[in-house]
């Protein structure tokens, strides 16, 4: 508790740091827009090609994209509002959304790496059994 009190006294979001946060929030929103637009375009291509399997995969990827980037969008909006109105509550919510975003990205990466490892092991076992 003492350490926290010390942290409150020492570290602050200075006007220079506020500017950095506003720029960060702006880029976060750009990433969200490009990611969602990219996912929708990818679905349009798949629908145009007439491959419904690919369209379903595109729809699934859009769902994942929305689930991930909604937190980055929340971060961008709340940090900007929090910094502009000097509201610690909104600022904290924004940082919490950033934490959730990186957590989801990391967990997805762990799942993908796990699947890759399983495929790798499966291929090795299959190759050994074929001999």
């Amino acid at each position, binding site marked *: 508790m003492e350490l*926290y009190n*010390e*942290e*409150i006294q*020492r*570290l*602050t*979001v*200075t*006007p*220079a*740091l*506020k*500017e*950095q*946060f506003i*720029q*960060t929030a702006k*880029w*976060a929103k*750009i*990433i969200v827009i*490009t*990611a969602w*637009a*990219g996912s929708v*375009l*990818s679905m*349009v*291509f798949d629908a*145009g090609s007439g491959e419904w399997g690919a369209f379903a995969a595109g729809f699934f990827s859009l769902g994942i994209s929305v689930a991930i980037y909604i937190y980055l969008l929340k971060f961008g909006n709340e940090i900007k509002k*929090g*910094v*502009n*109105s*000097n509201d*610690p509550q909104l*600022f*904290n919510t924004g*940082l*919490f959304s*950033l*934490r959730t975003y*990186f*957590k989801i*990205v*990391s967990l997805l*990466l762990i799942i993908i*790496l796990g699947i890759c490892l399983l495929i790798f092991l499966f291929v090795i076992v299959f190759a050994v059994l074929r001999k």
Partner: protein
Amino acid sequence: MEEQLFLSEDLPIDPSATSSLKETTYWTRFLTICFVVFIVLMIVATIGMIVAKDLIMQSIPSSIPFGKLGVMGMIIAMALVIGVMSVFTYFLFEFTSQTKKAFDQQDQQALERGITGLKNYLMISGVIGILSLVGAIFKLFTLL
């Protein structure tokens, strides 16, 4: 006017914000390690392709147009990916290490460097996203 007034004031970083930023750095450290492993694997694959370039080129049938150029293009593309990923990873590492240092040593300058690292990381991601989107729109126009 009121907004400008607030921007010139300091905003305190309370325990909740500290906790969120600290936990963010744990996840970004994990991502940085994954990116470094990916870069190392890409470097090994690129070196492998450069070493075995002649062998790969010989195995490509001459009936395939631009087959040999494709191998060179692939090596260049892999080098480009390594370059972009390295810059990308450097800024994420900068955010992770400087933010951790800021909370461990109560260093205001380190916190500013850390957030600048996060801004640069998101900026590069944004630029890559914009370029990919422009590419996809061009592809859409060629299909129409």
